[in-house]
């Protein structure tokens, strides 16, 4: 039966004789790949998810450009803070010219005296078909204003670029050239006494800019599966300059064998001083001269399906350098290098047995003050360089993920997953008594097994269990006492079923985690502190009753019980310190210190009519916590400051041909809150609009 099933669907291509021949032809490749896979398991690790950034963007999908000249988008939210993002765009695009004007205004008010405001008025005007070619020529402008206000101070910055812009295509590769004049103005004395409009507080400096861009992130070069773009930008204001070069190359090729090769490279270099930033309370100054270089390379070989398996091999390298050429005293120069290698194997969908697995390894180094030699660092009498260099570390990360499913008749699926992860950090430097104490390993090995039953779209039921072993080890003497292992257990049930017009879903799980210290002697006696232990029980029930096309009633009941405490293992007791009564009471037990019960009930009534949707809801929430009193030997209610919370709300959404509008209004009532009677408080309000006309 199994053989028939496989032969009947996935292997029908076997009847093609050319495919039959392929094994002998590519046997060498498969053997090498699998040997590599086995070899690597003894060295490295990674995940089983294909990195989508390696794939080329799909250019075959039809793009629909809006013909409406006005586009408005606005979001307004207020709860603990007030946030509003708004944009209006006007576009005219025809055979003769393109005109585009943006108006953007964003504000974040933290309601504690601090506010961020941003306003932008960028735009462009370009004439098409210049000199009877595909070239366009015009002008663009980018005025921007930024205002940061704190309780006592604030600063206002304005920036304005304006200049000609020229577009052309060379062998269908887009080329953009723009240049022009800049200005930067600021007011850094926006305190309560000086006033916003006092003219003496304003300063401004002129400058210029130039930019060349070749290619873009979508356009393929020469109709090949190759995307390349480079951008060079230079800007100078008041004698302070910044140059930025960014480039990226992405390629994907199919081999005759049906396998594919992917490659991605990205490089960026910025050199100079950031235009202007607030440097102190009274003077406006530039950021320090900073050189930042980033390089990233990725390559992958993705095989076609062979023996039901689609394999892939991936490698990536990245480098990041940050240096401050004239301010080395900051000791902030840093170089970070990362290498990663991974292997994946995935079966095609539809087979009785499906599998996806991967293993990956990353090894990273962080090198602070990397331009300094060991001799220079050692000879620093202030010891500051040595202290900073102690932060250098090497990191080794291994991970492997495997997911196997066996699809049985009658909609039953058996599933097993293995997820392993290890992160090791080593700090290579040591100076006399100066040692970085953070050297550590974190390991988690998790097994997941489940059984799933599905019946069309009517019912689904899943029962699963998880078992994990965790390690958190510190290796240096002042921290190694914290090293511990943990055993983690979880069981859960997920159900989803439709009974006529009622849909019921329930998500239930129970967890327990018991820890144990590696060095128990550190936690005995005067430092008596047994290891942590905790448990959780959680249930989320949802019932949706669809009365008819217009009315729906939804009820939700969430409840979580949790407790935290310590495992009073026999090995943590020192009979010279602990009295017999304490020993007899606790040893070999789980001592709960706190336990809490959180639950919420929610009812939502929904009404739909044409494109209008209205939800009216009511939420009730209560949290309670109890703490164990070791004097009275009983649990006592703890006042967490929370009372019962009730929150009525109403939502409305209207979808129309040119966009949508959404609104939500709600108010919180807390039984412990003295502001409940103040009508103006505790409201939350949201409004979202998007339209074009």
């Amino acid at each position, binding site marked *: 039966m199994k053989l028939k099933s496989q032969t009947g669907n996935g292997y029908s291509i076997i009847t093609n004789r050319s495919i039959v021949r392929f*094994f002998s032809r590519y046997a060498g490749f498969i053997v090498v790949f699998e040997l590599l896979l086995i070899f690597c398991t003894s060295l*490295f690790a990674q995940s089983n998810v294909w990195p989508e950034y390696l794939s080329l963007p799909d250019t075959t999908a039809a793009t629909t450009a809006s013909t409406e000249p006005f586009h408005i988008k606005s979001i307004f939210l207020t709860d603990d803070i007030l946030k509003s993002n708004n944009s209006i765009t006007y576009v005219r695009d025809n055979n003769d010219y393109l005109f585009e004007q943006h108006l953007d205004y964003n504000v974040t008010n933290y309601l*504690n005296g601090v506010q961020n405001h941003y306003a932008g008025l960028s735009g462009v005007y370009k004439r098409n078909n210049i000199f009877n070619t595909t070239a366009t020529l015009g002008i663009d402008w980018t005025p921007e204003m930024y205002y940061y206000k704190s309780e006592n101070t604030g600063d206002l910055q304005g920036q304005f670029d304006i200049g000609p812009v020229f577009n052309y295509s060379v062998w269908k590769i887009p080329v953009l050239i723009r240049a022009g004049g800049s200005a930067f103005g600021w007011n850094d004395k926006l305190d309560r006494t000086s006033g916003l409009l006092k003219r003496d507080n304003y300063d401004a400096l002129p400058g210029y800019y130039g930019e060349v861009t070749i290619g873009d992130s979508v356009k393929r070069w020469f109709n090949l599966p190759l995307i390349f773009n480079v951008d060079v930008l230079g800007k100078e204001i008041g004698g302070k300059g910044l140059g930025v070069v960014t480039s990226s190359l992405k390629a994907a090729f199919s081999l005759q064998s049906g396998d594919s090769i992917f490659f991605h490279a990205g490089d960026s270099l910025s050199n100079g001083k950031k235009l202007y930033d607030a440097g102190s309370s009274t003077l406006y100054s530039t950021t320090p001269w900073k050189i930042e270089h980033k390089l990233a390379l990725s390559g992958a070989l993705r095989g076609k399906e062979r023996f039901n398996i689609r394999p892939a091999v991936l490698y990536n390298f990245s480098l990041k350098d940050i240096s401050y050429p004239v301010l080395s005293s900051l000791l902030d120069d840093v170089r970070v290098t990362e290498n990663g290698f991974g292997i994946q*194997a995935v079966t095609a969908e539809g087979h009785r047995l499906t599998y996806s*697995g991967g293993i990956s390894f990353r090894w990273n180094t962080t090198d602070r003050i990397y331009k300094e030699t060991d001799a220079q660092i050692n000879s620093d009498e202030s010891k500051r360089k040595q202290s900073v260099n102690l932060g250098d570390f090497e990191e080794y990360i291994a991970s492997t993920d495997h997911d196997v499913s066996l699809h049985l008749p009658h909609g039953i699926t058996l599933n097993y997953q293995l997820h392993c992860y290890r992160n090791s950090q080593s700090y290579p430097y040591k100076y006399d008594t100066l040692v970085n104490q953070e050297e550590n390993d974190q390991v988690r090995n998790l097994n997941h097994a489940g059984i799933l039953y599905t019946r069309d779209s009517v019912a689904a039921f899943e029962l699963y269990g998880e078992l994990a072993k965790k390690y958190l080890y510190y290796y240096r003497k002042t921290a190694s006492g914290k090293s511990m292992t943990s055993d983690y257990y979880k069981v859960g049930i997920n159900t989803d079923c439709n009974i006529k017009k009622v849909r019921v879903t329930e998500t239930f799980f129970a967890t327990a985690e018991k820890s144990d210290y590696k*060095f128990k002697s550190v936690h005995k006696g005067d430092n008596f502190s047994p290891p942590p232990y905790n448990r959780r029980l959680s249930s989320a029930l949802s019932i949706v009753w669809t009365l008819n096309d217009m009315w729906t009633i939804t009820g939700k009941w969430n409840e979580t019980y949790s407790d*935290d405490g310590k495992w009073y293992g026999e090995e943590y007791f020192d009979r010279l310190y602990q009295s017999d009564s304490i020993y007899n009471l606790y040893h070999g037990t789980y001592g709960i210190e706190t336990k809490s019960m959180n639950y919420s009930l929610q009812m939502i009534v929904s009404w739909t009519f044409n494109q209008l949707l209205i939800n009216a809801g009511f939420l009730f929430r209560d949290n309670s*916590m109890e703490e164990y009193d070791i004097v009275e030997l009983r649990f006592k209610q703890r006042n967490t400051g929370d009372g019962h919370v009730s929150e009525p709300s109403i939502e409305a959404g209207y979808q129309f041909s040119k966009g949508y509008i959404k609104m939500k209004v709600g108010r919180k009532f807390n039984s412990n809150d003295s502001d409940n009677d103040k009508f103006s408080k505790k409201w939350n309000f949201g409004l979202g609009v998007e339209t074009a006309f």
Partner: protein
Amino acid sequence: MLLNKKMMYMHNGIKLVRGKIALLLLLSLSCGIFQPRDTFELPVVTVVVDRFNFGSIFDSIGRPIVWKDYETLFADSFSFSDARTGTYGKTKFIENLRQMERKNERFKITWSNIEKPTEGEMSRLTINELRYTFIDDTGAVEKKIETGKSRMVIVRDNTYKLIAWDDFPEMAAKSIFAPE
């Protein structure tokens, strides 16, 4: 006949691949990649100093903590947000604090205006108007004093932990807690 023979060969190949995957699973678990090192220095009991004086914040709101270390102080989903620049996760932020400690053995920080926290969802406590004064006196560079305001969110997870911290620096272009 020849075709049947080759089909049988293919099925044998499939079995071989499955066998190797099973072997890989076993190797993954048994070869020691996913086991921690066992090269400990014998522990000594030390007191980790609360250089940033975080304990005083918890004392002031009536939720004292037993100071242990940064890993215990910050919740796993902790995020630090500088109102002018960006957001940092727990690991990166702790590294920022440690780097500040390593670069300067003499800085001081004081927290003030610690008002009664407001209560939010899931027992979260928010301190809205917390002010700080940071004095950086390395001796190697000019003494630097930074002031600012913070909003901190605290959760109860066995002990009280910081889960969110929004920083509003008053003078510097970037928060002193996240200078990169």
